[in-house]
């Protein structure tokens, strides 16, 4: 066991919003997350890096309950996330409470294809928060303006480029006024020329103080916006530190190997 992980106390001054302790998760016999410990403070931007299959997506998917975990502790916004055993007998209420405060942006955008951009953004506030349709749509229009898509509000997702779809998806999450946003490789499915527009929106969010957990392969972006960078390897957190610590002075051999591979080009 490698327990000598140095956790920088940058969270000490902040209120902890996501607290993960000894989290274990497996898909059948495959142990995906092993004894993961991670606290995220309010307003903090945490970027999670690691090779594909290392469990980084699974980790953030646990934070809004899209994946269930077997043992350990996971609290979000003070609510305790139900485990596999809890979910078998209920736990839907806690799950819904947590999800109302957690936004998620997916690699494949996952916009609702049968609704226009504005309806994609307005539907959850109307159906989940019980907002009046007019208010929700007015707010949706403001959010679309914020991500630079006001003129595309009435288009269907199929009529938008990948970068535009991903920005609508971000606006859709923001419409629920989340306390924390999860990004699961938000630019991996985009053509290179569209990556910038999505990262710009995320940069803006970080500047406004949104708490964010981001899984990405954009190392330059990670170095720029992250308060802390987490390196995951085979389901275990090997290293946590400031971007400078991780990118310039990695302590683990495996971190060095990984970074030399992804930073070479």
């Amino acid at each position, binding site marked *: 066991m490698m327990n000598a992980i140095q956790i920088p106390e940058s969270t000490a001054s902040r209120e902890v919003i996501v607290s993960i302790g000894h989290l274990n998760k497996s898909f059948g016999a495959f142990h995906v997350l092993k004894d993961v410990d991670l606290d995220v403070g309010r307003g903090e931007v945490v970027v999670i890096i690691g090779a594909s299959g290392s469990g980084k997506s699974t980790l953030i998917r646990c934070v*809004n309950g*899209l994946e269930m975990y077997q043992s350990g502790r996971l609290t979000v916004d003070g609510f305790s996330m139900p485990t596999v055993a809890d979910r078998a007998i209920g736990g839907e209420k806690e799950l819904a409470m947590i999800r109302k405060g957690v936004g998620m942006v*997916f690699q494949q955008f*996952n916009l609702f294809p049968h609704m226009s951009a504005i309806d994609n953004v307005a539907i*959850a506030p109307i159906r989940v928060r019980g907002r009046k349709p007019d208010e929700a749509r007015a707010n949706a229009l403001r959010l679309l303006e914020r991500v630079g898509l006001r003129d595309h509000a009435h288009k269907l997702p199929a009529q938008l480029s990948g970068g535009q779809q991903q920005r609508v998806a971000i606006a*859709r999450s923001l419409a629920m006024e989340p306390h924390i946003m999860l990004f699961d490789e938000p630019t991996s499915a985009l053509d290179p020329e569209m990556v910038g527009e999505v990262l710009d929106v995320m940069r803006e969010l970080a500047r406004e103080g949104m708490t964010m957990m981001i899984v990405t392969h954009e190392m330059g972006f990670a170095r720029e916006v992250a308060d802390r960078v987490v390196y995951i390897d085979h389901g275990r957190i090997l290293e946590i530190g400031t971007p400078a610590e991780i990118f310039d002075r990695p302590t683990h051999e495996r971190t060095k190997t990984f970074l030399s591979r992804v930073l070479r080009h």
Partner: protein
Amino acid sequence: MTTLAARWVHRNLFAKPFDAALSLVIIPLLAWAVYAFGHWALVEAHWQVVGGSFKVLLTGIYPADQLWRAWFSVATLCAMFGAGLGLSVRPARAAMVAVASVAILIAAGVAAAIDVRSGLLTAGSAALGIAAWVGAHRSGVDQRIVLSGLLAGVVAIFVVLSPPGFEVWGGLLLSVVLTIAVSILTLPFGILLALGRQSRITSLRVISTAYIETMRSVPLILVVYWIWIIVPLLAPDTSVPGLLRGMAGFALFFAAYVAEYVRSGLQAVPRGQIEAARSLAMSTWTLNVDIVLPQALRVVVPSLVGQILDIFNGATLVFIIGLTDFLRAGQMILADPQNSGRAYEVYVFLFAVYLAIGGAITYASRRLEAHLARGS
């Protein structure tokens, strides 16, 4: 022009020796068949048997002094069909001219066979349908309003037709109303069954699966007959009209098939859609109603429209519980001794009407498929 025609003939009929041989056999055979049928239809056949029995063929034993109720239904159906058409098909001039000519032909036929008043009523109903088509398309009215209008139309037809009693409904009217009512009834029931089959709640899943598989493994006629005899057992003090019992049997049977279509549609909705809805804290109800079902139903609309044809053709089986549908009405006419020997005329007429309606439904299903494929 002639060279063009010659080239077409050469390429399509006489391209190779085998094609030529086949064409030489089939074309004369076909020509002879068309000539023989045409000669019979125009010279030998006595169409008075059909013209004189129009009332029975179309409405069965519905009281003659109450026929305005049937006319109301025809007009409402035309308007409903037009409004539904307006949602997906643009009323292009050519299409409207084609529809109007067919309507005028039918109206003229009706006028000749029965009386001028009936012909005018037919023409009026068709005009109403075309107006609804153009109106629904031009006004760009919301789909939901049109769909509620269609439901209201069905209810109105039932309310207007029912006073003389369900026992007197018959003929083509019975077949059409039964088909429409059953098509609508199966939809919610089938959707619930499909969702039940996917439910995480074991008892729901087992019951839904058992229901669907049972219905799919027995014949329609058995279910219809079985419901017909079991309703009086379950409710001995009330007399449920045979028509309603028949409808219940049809709806219970076809709901299982709707459930299977809907299930295939549910499976076509990507997992990411459900995850996105979940991540927005949507409840299972909202997730199904707003996100999953609209996408799933879109995929299966052509199959569901195709199933309307199955229901319409299956409606011929209601004679087993003593109802007089279109086919049975034809047989009733032939049972009259003065019409003996006119079986060909009656059956050719039945065949033509079934073919026209079935063809229209098949065409609609195919158009919807193309329309939906383009939209996605």
